[in-house]
């Protein structure tokens, strides 16, 4: 059964129930709660089993990145930026590096373009694998989580071989990438892709054809098409609602214009539709990685010579570089005042809208049991909200 189409109201018109009436139960989901993504908390007001009101509370992971970046040299910021979104640091690295290159007028060599695309697609696959585990786990299906997180680990092994880091890679640096491809790497990439694809087939069989999963996920957290613009929803959440927007196609950065793929568009943006779409994007990522393996130039420089990073002054200017991460539009807005430190770096994380405004809107009328599943199905990630 589908939920009837809700109409978006700005949160100003939010009807807050009077808690003294004794009809409602106020409880906190999180931060110490297995059913919450990352480290944030929801203040739920429940009437019986149904949530009637919700406030998201973020900031448990606030480290003040944007303040710290203003205190550091452009190069010194690289260890920082990748820690803004832990499951997929490469998007931070790419956006920051691309912004600096654009401001400084650096052109990266051909091979670096392909290696960056490879790294982005691999981390997309890894992050989705982690997500599908969370989605299944939120509905109590631990087996899928066990399988998929292990598959993610195999992808992380590739990263470890390519960049030396499991979680934080710091591979994409201004002027190109940090290192070349090790010998025999492509063979192992393809082998891992085969393993992951085989496991994805199993996961689809067990999870998506499962009556119980369908009963839980269908109609949960239905996002109407007209919310997409109203709430600034991007990524799979918007594509599942029928808005065929994929920055990889639209703004065509890196090697994506030269790769053959079509953004997937769904019809129903409920938990099940979004999960289906993300599964499709996983297969798509595997396909893209195979294309990249075929077409990456074997030799050639992988990094542009940069001026001494100590005195690397970037001419004054501002730019906003956005990339399509697994959750939507991920962007870095960098303002330079001509000195060797950035004047302002602002991070646009897709969870910013998904986890706060959209979540608070969607969770009303949802059964308490489904809050965790709804939260995961939006694929939110707190650190990019609070930075």
């Amino acid at each position: 059964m589908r939920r009837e189409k809700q109409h978006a109201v700005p949160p100003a018109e939010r009807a807050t129930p009077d808690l003294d009436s004794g009809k409602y139960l106020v409880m906190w989901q999180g931060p110490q709660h297995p059913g919450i993504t990352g480290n944030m908390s929801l203040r739920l007001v429940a009437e019986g089993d149904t949530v009637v009101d919700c406030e998201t509370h973020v900031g448990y992971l606030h480290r003040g990145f944007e303040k710290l970046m203003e205190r550091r040299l452009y190069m010194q910021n690289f260890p920082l930026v990748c820690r803004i979104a832990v499951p997929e640091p490469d998007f931070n690295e790419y956006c920051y590096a691309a912004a600096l290159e654009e401001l400084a007028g650096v052109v990266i060599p051909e091979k670096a373009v392909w290696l960056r695309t490879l790294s982005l697609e691999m981390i997309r696959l890894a992050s989705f694998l982690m997500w599908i585990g969370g989605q299944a786990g939120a509905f109590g299906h631990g087996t899928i989580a066990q399988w998929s997180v292990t598959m993610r680990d195999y992808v992380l092994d590739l990263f470890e071989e390519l960049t030396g880091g499991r979680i934080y890679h710091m591979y994409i640096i201004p002027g190109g990438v940090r290192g070349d491809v090790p010998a025999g790497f492509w063979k192992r990439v393809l082998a891992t892709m085969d393993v992951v694809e085989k496991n994805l087939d199993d996961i689809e069989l067990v999870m998506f054809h499962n009556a119980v999963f369908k009963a839980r996920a269908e109609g949960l957290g239905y996002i109407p098409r007209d919310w997409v613009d109203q709430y600034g929803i991007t990524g799979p959440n918007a594509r599942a609602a029928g808005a065929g927007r994929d920055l990889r196609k639209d703004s065509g950065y890196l090697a994506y214009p030269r790769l053959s793929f079509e953004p997937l568009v769904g019809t129903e943006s409920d938990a099940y539709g979004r999960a289906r779409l993300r599964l499709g994007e996983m297969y798509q990522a595997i396909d893209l990685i195979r294309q990249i393996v075929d077409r990456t130039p074997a030799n050639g420089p992988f990094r542009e010579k940069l001026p001494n990073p100590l005195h690397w002054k970037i001419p004054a200017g501002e730019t906003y570089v956005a990339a399509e991460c697994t959750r939507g539009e991920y962007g870095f807005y960098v303002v330079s005042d001509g000195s060797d430190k950035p004047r302002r770096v602002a991070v646009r994380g897709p969870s910013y809208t998904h986890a706060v405004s959209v979540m608070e809107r969607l969770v009303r009328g949802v059964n308490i049991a489904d809050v965790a599943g709804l939260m995961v199905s939006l694929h939110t990630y707190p650190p990019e909200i609070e930075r």
Partner: protein
Amino acid sequence: MNELATRLAGRYGARDWHDQRKDLAAATVDVARIRDVMAWLRDEEGYRHLSFMTAIDNIERGVFTLAYALRNHGTGHGLIIHADVGRDDPKVDSIHLLWGQAWTYQREMKEWYGIDFPGSPRVDEEFVLEGWEGPPMMRRDFDSLAYSDATYAERPGRVTHDPAAHMRDRLFPEAAR
């Protein structure tokens, strides 16, 4: 995109239009008209997607420069609208009725810069901080290191090299000479 520049300049007196990329431009408008500009861009010009809002502390000029990043999904063109507001007692029109997520950014700016958005829902609540005493921390005149040293206990024995000096002496000695 230049006809948009002329229209924007004609209707709202937008200044210093600047094409950063072929798909990204920036312009500055008067802060009093920011809501009109936003509504017009959203409804008439197809810039229906609000990417983000933020502020830049131009302490030298004594202003906060607001930045509203919009995106036209039809043409794939991005537009950043700037507006300057004075650093002392800044007040800006809220646009939370135009976009459903704008109130969150405004709440963030209120907490991080002290820019007030009257009428924006829950704008006075704490956003990421809790029990924060002291100035809005994203202002340039707030020193993070001094606050950290004064507040949090340091583990003895940590040698803090000046990173620039460390890079000069250890990592890039050839750059030093």
